């Protein structure tokens, strides 16, 4: 795959004909919006939206030692997974910094699919390969999969029109490897990146345009809209779902990013474990906190954050929240500087603008848990 070229998903023509406004996203030409970010955001919260996330990467790990390989690579406990279950987890370096965050799909104990961030595909593939014994095959299948996300309270009702498979039987964070959608096989999981109920649908690149159009057509009467990357970002920020590059990076540990629940020290050895254990014992130096702006101004990623005039960190992600109708953000700052409800300031174009720490998440997730 060309690293600097303009990469297009199999749905490029669909985005064009829908009036998508394209941006470059890590080398991918993807729509940032169609009708408008706020309208798209609200549609996902109230009805449903359809996203093209084909840029995401898929890495297959297969072989008798597959479970051990995955266990060594990730901070979560993949041994607790049942067949057809999905786990959100992180891969760390030895020093505890994050290689990537990912979804782990377990077919069986000897067959896993890792779904990784688009910008990290090459890096992750090399990393997994490097830590796999010869008995394990590791394949980068990213070019063989297109991925759609259908998200929102009406997602199930819409998708059910196109498949005989009873979708209510897929619990939260489970998947079915071959659901027939309008005559095409797809892997369907009840997962997402919006804080709403919904599905992620993996098809062949050839079938993707057909499945995309069928879903849009089935959902239109209910108000379904195609959704661009702009609303994907505002939706995930409200739900406090981390974005690699903002809340996670090689310089930020999962403990600092508030993801301690996803680091299972009890499971045994994994890459980064001793560094994270040490950090936990010595005291986690930074914390990720949520804030809302008290004065006019929009916090953006990298803007400095101060408390009592001292610089304590920076904004990891920030922006206008269409659901809260406030300017909100996540700040990565020195631990213990601001109590819940306490004040901080975001430096917007050289001026300190007042903000207040508020509890996370900004928006309460509405997953369909059994």
């Amino acid at each position, binding site marked *: 795959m060309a690293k600097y070229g303009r990469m297009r998903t199999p749905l490029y023509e669909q985005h064009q004909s829908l009036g998508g406004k394209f941006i470059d996203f890590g080398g991918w030409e993807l729509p940032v919006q169609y009708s408008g970010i706020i309208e798209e955001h609200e549609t996902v919260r109230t009805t449903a939206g359809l996203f093209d996330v084909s840029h995401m990467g898929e890495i297959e790990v297969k072989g008798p030692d597959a479970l051990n390989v995955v266990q060594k690579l990730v901070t979560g406990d993949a041994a607790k997974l049942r067949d057809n279950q999905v786990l959100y987890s992180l891969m760390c370096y030895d020093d505890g910094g994050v290689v990537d965050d990912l979804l782990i799909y377990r077919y069986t104990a000897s067959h896993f699919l890792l779904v990784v961030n688009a910008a990290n595909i090459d890096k992750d593939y090399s990393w997994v390969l490097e830590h796999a014994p010869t008995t394990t095959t590791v394949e980068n299948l990213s070019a063989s999969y297109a991925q759609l996300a259908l998200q929102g309270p009406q997602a199930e009702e819409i998708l059910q029109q196109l498949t005989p498979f009873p979708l209510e039987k897929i619990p939260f964070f489970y998947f079915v490897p071959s659901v027939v959608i309008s005559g095409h096989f797809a892997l369907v999981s009840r997962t997402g990146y919006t804080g709403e109920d919904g599905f992620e649908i993996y098809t062949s690149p050839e079938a993707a345009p057909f499945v995309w159009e069928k879903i849009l057509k089935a959902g239109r009467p209910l108000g379904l809209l195609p959704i661009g990357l702009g609303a994907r970002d505002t939706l995930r920020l409200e739900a406090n779902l981390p974005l690699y590059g903002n809340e996670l990076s090689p310089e930020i540990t999962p403990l600092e990013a508030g993801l301690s629940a996803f680091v299972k020290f009890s499971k045994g050895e994994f890459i980064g474990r001793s560094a994270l254990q040490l950090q936990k014992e010595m005291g986690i130096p930074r914390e990720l906190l949520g804030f809302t702006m008290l004065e006019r101004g929009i916090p953006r990623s990298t803007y400095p954050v101060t408390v009592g005039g001292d610089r304590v960190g920076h904004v990891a992600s920030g922006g*206008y929240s269409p659901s809260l109708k406030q300017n909100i953000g996540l700040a990565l700052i020195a631990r213990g500087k601001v109590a819940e409800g306490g004040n901080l300031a975001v430096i917007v174009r050289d001026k300190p603008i007042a903000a207040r720490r508020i509890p996370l998440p900004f928006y309460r997730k509405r997953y369909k848990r059994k």
Partner: protein
Amino acid sequence: MNVPQQLVYSREHEWVKIDGDRATIGITDYAQGSLGDIVFVELPAEGDKVKAGVGFGVVESVKAASDLYCPISGTVVAANHALLDNPQLLNTDPYTNWIIAVAISDHGELAHLLTPEQYAELIK
């Protein structure tokens, strides 16, 4: 794309309405469409000096912040404070919802602005 005939334009997608020594400035329909949903506007104070080609304010959409470049030099005589609470007015009607009015200090600069025909060509 709406490009009204009675206005002149900058290459940075601002419109200018000339009324004697007073210039009223806003952003074009093309600009608001490119920016997307506008959620924040930062205005200069009345009495501030502004200079052609230099930033005089900021508009922010959901996605990003963009500087507003002044098409002509002068002194700010009015700023549209209605935009502070309702920045989306720039999306709904960018030609009615002006941003600032300036007392023009150098009429010569007007020669650098674009006619409606030239601007329509620029955004084609």
